[in-house]
C-alpha cells in the first residue's frame, strides 16, 4: 500500500487538469448555480467518454477496474475547479450502493453508471436527522415506500433513486424509479443540485439491508475528501499567487513575515490532508478499515478546507468578500463539504468509537 501516485495516475491527473482548464471555467460553474439540475449534461457525457465514471468499478461490470485511487486524482482536479458534475451522487454514492448491494441490481445498473448513461441519487437524509443514518422515518412496506427526503444530492436530475427506509430488519436501501416521485429543487449555498423528494407509496426494490448505507457513505466520504483536497489546494494557490503580486506599503504583501508564517501553516495542513486522503483511498483499494480511514480523513479535511478558505479571504482582503470574486465559491463549497456526511466533530467521535476511545 503506497501513498504516492504511480505514472498512470499522474497522467490521468494531468488529463483531468487539462480538462478543467479547457472545459470547466469558474464562470461556467457560476452560471450553473441557478440551473435546474446544477450541472452540464454535455460535460458529463464528455467525462463519461473519458471513462471517469467507471474508473473504480470491475471490468466485468463495465468499469475500468483501476480502483479508487484513479477516481481520486480525477476528483481532486474537478474539485480544484469546483466542477459540479454528479460524481459524488452518481458514482460515489450510487455506484458504491450498487457495487455492494443486490447482485442483480448491480449487473443492471453499474454498467449504465460506468457508461455515464444513468444518473443516480441516494436519498438518505431527512429533516432533523442531522448526521444519523439510522433515524429514517421513511418506511418500506408491501413493495412501496412512503416518506420525505431532503437535500438529496443530484436528486433533481437522477434517473434512479436509492432511498433509505425502515424495512424488515432495520434501515435498508431501496431502488425507486425517479420519475415516479415528486421532486423540489433546493437552493444551497454552493449552488449544486439538492432536492426534496416526496415518496407517496412509490414501488421500490430492495437493494440491501442494514449496514449497506454506512458502507456507501464511507466510500462517498473518502471520495469527497479528494474533491475537498483539490478545492482547498486551488484556494491556497490563488492566495499564494495573490501574496506574491499584491503590494501594500510599497512591497508585496507576501513579504510580511506574519503572513508568510500563516501561509506556511496552511501549506502544512494541505500536506497532512493529502496524506489522509491518499491513505483512505489506498485502504479502499487494498481492503482494510475503511470506516476508520474515512472518518480520519473527513475529521481532518472538514475543518482544514474551511480554514484555508477563510484564511484565503482574510489574506485577500475586501476583494475576497465580493460576489464577483471566486473565493466565495470556495468558501461556500467548504461549508457544504464540511457538513456533508458529517462534520469534523461527528467524525472525531466516530473515529474515537472505532478506535476504542
Amino acid at each position: 500500500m503506497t501513498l504516492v501516485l504511480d505514472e498512470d495516475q499522474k497522467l490521468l491527473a494531468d488529463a483531468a487538469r487539462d480538462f478543467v482548464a479547457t472545459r470547466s471555467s469558474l464562470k461556467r460553474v457560476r452560471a450553473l448555480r441557478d440551473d435546474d439540475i446544477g450541472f452540464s449534461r454535455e460535460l458529463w457525457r464528455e467525462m463519461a467518454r473519458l471513462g471517469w465514471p467507471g474508473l473504480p468499478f470491475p471490468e466485468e461490470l463495465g468499469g475500468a477496474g483501476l480502483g479508487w485511487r484513479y477516481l481520486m486524482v480525477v476528483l481532486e482536479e474537478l474539485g480544484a475547479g469546483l466542477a459540479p458534475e454528479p460524481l459524488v451522487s452518481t458514482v460515489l454514492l450510487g455506484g458504491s450502493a450498487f457495487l455492494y448491494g443486490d447482485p442483480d441490481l448491480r449487473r443492471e445498473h453499474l454498467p449504465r453508471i460506468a457508461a455515464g448513461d444513468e444518473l443516480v441519487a441516494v436519498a438518505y437524509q431527512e429533516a432533523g436527522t442531522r448526521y444519523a443514518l439510522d433515524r429514517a422515518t421513511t418506511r418500506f412496506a408491501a413493495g412501496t415506500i412512503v416518506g420525505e427526503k431532503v437535500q438529496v444530492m443530484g436528486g433533481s436530475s437522477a434517473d434512479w433513486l436509492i432511498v433509505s427506509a425502515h424495512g424488515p430488519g432495520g434501515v435498508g436501501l431501496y431502488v425507486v424509479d425517479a420519475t415516479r416521485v415528486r421532486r423540489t429543487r433546493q437552493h444551497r449555498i454552493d449552488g449544486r443540485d439538492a432536492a426534496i423528494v416526496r415518496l407517496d407509496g412509490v414501488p421500490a426494490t430492495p437493494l440491501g439491508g442494514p449496514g449497506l448505507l454506512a458502507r456507501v457513505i464511507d466510500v462517498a466520504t473518502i471520495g469527497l475528501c479528494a474533491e475537498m483536497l483539490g478545492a482547498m489546494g486551488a484556494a491556497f494557490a490563488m492566495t499564494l499567487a495573490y501574496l506574491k503580486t499584491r503590494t501594500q506599503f510599497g512591497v508585496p504583501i507576501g513579504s510580511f513575515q506574519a503572513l508568510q508564517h500563516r501561509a506556511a501553516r496552511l501549506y502544512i495542513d494541505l500536506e497532512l490532508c493529502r496524506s489522509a486522503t491518499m491513505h483512505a483511498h489506498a485502504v479502499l483499494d487494498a481492503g482494510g478499515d475503511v470506516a476508520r480511514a474515512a472518518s480520519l480523513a473527513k475529521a481532518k479535511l472538514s475543518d482544514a478546507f474551511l480554514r484555508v478558505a477563510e484564511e484565503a479571504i482574510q489574506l485577500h482582503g475586501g476583494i475576497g468578500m465580493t460576489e464577483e470574486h471566486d473565493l466565495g465559491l470556495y468558501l461556500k463549497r467548504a461549508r457544504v463539504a464540511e457538513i456533508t456526511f458529517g462534520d469534523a466533530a461527528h467524525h472525531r467521535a466516530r473515529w474515537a468509537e472505532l478506535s476504542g476511545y
Partner: protein
Amino acid sequence: MSDLDTFRAETRAWLIANAPESMRAPYRTTEELCWGGKKVAYPADVLRWRDACVERGFTAPTWPREYGGGGLDKASAKVLAEEMAAQRLRPPLIGFGLSMIGPLLLQEGSEALRREHIPAIVRGDIRWCQGYSEPGAGSDLASLQTRAVADGDAFIVNGQKIWTSYADKSDWMFLLVRTDPAARNQDGITFLLMDMSSPGVTVRPIRLISGASPFCETFLADVRVPMANVVGRVNGGWAMARALLTHERTMIADVFRDRDDADRLRTAARAAVGVDALGRIADPVLRDRIVALEIDQACFDLTLARSRDAAKAGARPGHESSIFKLVGTELNQRRRDLAVRVNGPQALGWDGPGFGEDDIKATRDWLRSRGNTIEGGTSEIQLNIISKRVLALPEK
C-alpha cells in the same frame, strides 16, 4: 429642584407626549431607523419622530444652537440619553453626518462649510457617505490614487472609491483625494466634500458573498468639486482622516454587541442536538465550545466596561479601539461559525424550500462575518498598531 431636575422632568414629559408608540419598539437592524437624505422614503412615524426631535435640537443635542443643535451641556445631554433609554426610544436620526463629518466640521471646517452643512445634518436633509478606500489601497490607505487637479476655483477629481457604505442612498460624500502626487504618501492628500449629484459620479452597489450589501463602488470621472469644499487645508487631509478612523473602529466594535446573541445560540443548540437528563445541551463537546465562546465574550464585554469606567474616571483613551476592533470581530466570527455548526445540514440553505428563515439568516450572517476582520482596518493592521503603538516594538 435643580435646573437639571427641571430639565429631566420637562424632557420626560415631552418625550412621552411626542414620541410615536412605534418608536418605542426595539429595532432589529438600523435599516428601520432614519438615516435622513433625499433618496430614501421613510415611514411617516419615523419622519414625525425625527422632525419633532429636530425642532427641539434633540437629533444633535450637544451641538451649538446657532447651527440647529440642542446646545445642551454634557450633564443635560446625559439626562436626555437616560430618559430616552428609560422610555426605550429609538434614536430619531443616525448616520455619518451626525457621527463623523458633522463633528469634524464643527472642529475643523470653515464657517461657510458649517453654515452650509451642519443645519442640514441636524435636520437629516442630507445623508453622507465616506469615500476612503480604493481598489489598490486596502490597508495602505495612504497609497490612494484618486487624483484631484486644480482648475480655477475647483478641483477636477478622477478615480474610484470602493467599500463606500450607502453611496447609492447618500447625497454627499466626504472623501480623500491625492492633490500632490509628488509628495510622500500621506502628505499630498486632501479632504473634500462632494455633492453626489455632480456630473461624472457613478455608483454601483457591491454584492457580497452573503448577498446584497450597503457597500458601493463609486466611479469619479472629471467630477468638479469647488475649492471651498476642502476641509482643513489642501494637502492636509491625512490629519482629518486619522481622527475619523479611530472613531470608526470603536463604532464597528460596538455593532457586534447584541445581548440576545448568546440566548439565540443556546436556544439553537438545544433545538439542534437536544438536551440531556439534566437539561443541558446534549452534546458535551458542542456545549464546551459554546461555553468557551461565551466566556471569552464575557471577558471582552467586561473589558469594554472597564474601558468605559476608566474613561469616566478621567483616563485618556489609548489604543483600546484596536483591541476592541480585533477581538470584537473575531468573537463575532466565532459566534457566527458556531451558529452554523449548530445548525448542521440545515445551515446549507441559501434560499427557498426546506430551509427556515432563521437558518438562512444564520448562514448569511456567517458569510458576512468573514468581512468583519477586514473592513474598518484589517486584524493585521490592528495587530501592527498594538505591537507598535502600545507595546513599542521596534520597526525593522
